[in-house]
């Protein structure tokens, strides 16, 4: 009996790779992250935050001072209120009685979108931090440092981190992004990752506090929409 011809098509005929490439995490029972043994080295010698820094950047934090400054900035950056889209959308998903995994998915998607939007608004900040451009005036808030920004500056000073960005009266998010950048979170991907990672617990807090199915407890007509269809 003749063997049927092998199927032919763009996938079969292409010169694709044969294996999936792992770049960061080994597949062995005792995994390694970027080369470091997770159980025998990282778990014994580093905090979870430091390990996450390693995951995001590919290298361990340069010093304990870096870690302290990083933790401070994340703590200041993290809060998300229900007025903001990520917590609002995730809470609304919870209200609908959706699967808890979907609530988290919506939270992550909306947080990622928020992060991307904020980074786009900060495009002019990176040349300034690289000493390649002027301070973008639109990122200044008022004539003096706002209280939360001053508190962040003082807290960072206490751990030995000084930043020129505070001379420019930035808003809190701008100050946090600038310091993250100075500490070594130098790519958009890294800043996006930190944004989502540090804010997710706050979104979780709001979203899972919503009682599923209590539809009347949600202000359905906020904000109002004015329909402009020709059949109105």
């Amino acid at each position, binding site marked *: 009996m003749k063997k049927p011809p092998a199927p032919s*098509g*763009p*996938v079969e*005929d*292409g010169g694709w790779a044969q*294996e*999936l*490439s*792992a*770049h960061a*995490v*080994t*597949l062995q029972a005792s995994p*390694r992250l*970027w*080369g*470091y*043994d997770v159980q025998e*080295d990282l778990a014994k*010698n*580093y905090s979870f935050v430091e390990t996450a820094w390693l995951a995001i950047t590919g290298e*361990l934090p*340069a*010093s*304990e*001072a*870096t870690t302290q*400054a990083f933790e401070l900035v994340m703590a200041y950056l993290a809060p998300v209120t229900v007025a903001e889209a990520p917590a609002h959308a995730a809470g609304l998903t919870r209200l609908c009685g959706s*699967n808890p*995994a*979907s609530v988290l*998915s919506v939270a992550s*998607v909306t947080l990622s979108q928020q992060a991307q939007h904020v980074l786009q608004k900060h495009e002019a900040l*990176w040349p300034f*931090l*690289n*000493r*390649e451009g002027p301070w973008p005036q639109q990122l200044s808030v008022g004539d003096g440092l706002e209280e939360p920004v001053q508190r962040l500056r003082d807290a960072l000073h206490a751990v*030995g*981190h*000084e*930043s020129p960005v505070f001379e420019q009266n930035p808003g809190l998010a701008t100050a946090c992004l600038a310091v993250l*950048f*100075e*500490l070594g979170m*130098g*790519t*958009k*991907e890294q800043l996006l990752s930190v944004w989502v990672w540090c804010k997710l617990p706050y979104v979780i807090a709001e979203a899972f506090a919503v009682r599923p199915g209590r539809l009347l407890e949600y202000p359905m007509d*906020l*904000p*109002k*929409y*004015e*329909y*402009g*269809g*020709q*059949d*109105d």
Partner: protein
Amino acid sequence: MTRRVPTLSTAVARARHGDNSFRGYRVNAQLLGEESMSSMAALAVGGPRLRPEDIKILDELAVAVTVADPRIWPLKVTRVAGAYGSMFAAYAAGNLCMDGALMSVALCQETARRLKALAPLAAELGDDALVQHLREAWPERRPPGFGVPGRPRDERVEGLACRRQADSSAPQPYFDLFERVADLMAEHRGLQVNLTLIFGAIALDLGFEPEQIGALAWSTAENAFLANAVEGAQQAPELLQCLPSSTVRYDGPRPRLSPRAQPSKRGAAAEDTVKLGPIGLSDG
């Protein structure tokens, strides 16, 4: 006293007692029995209400774009994300993958914009002058609308072109322009046209604006995601939940010891200070 909250506007819909509004029409009274799934998608993206003969063309477009092989990258995302059994997660993940993706059908918006800008000029130019103009106006090595990965020609273009060539019921100025540009680009620049250019042309002939055409193309591609989301979630294959280790190759850094794990350097890290300096913001 509560502050007045601004009102948002919508042209999409309004829930009503008795009959709902959608894009300026009553669903029961005006749309039901008249519209197809693809013509509803046309209304959804803000496009025109189509004549029955135009709905047929749009339906053909929606059929012809169907490439649903689960191995195609964004569809594979659908499969992998749906490996635990949720077609919703699968569908959402596949669609998110299209945001900014290399193979995004949203490119149809750009091809339509270019065809629309080219049309009045092309009518005045002979072939040689048009080729020269295209070199200047579409200077990319592979302009949007061109390039066919993995095969010599885009079979979707061939299917759609056959149908449009056979239809002489109405003028198709953008399709005619598409054919002319496709031939000239193949002859003079060795470029093969892909779906996004013919899609843009046909959608322009149907009366859509370029800014509506990206979303329209996305809507017609949805069946491929739907099919893979549904079947992928039904299968929820363990194989995709975690591939066999024999199929994965580690290309990362070699094993190394952290500074704190090296006895001679214990404590040294605490003495370090934060070093500031220029840092590059890359996309990579």
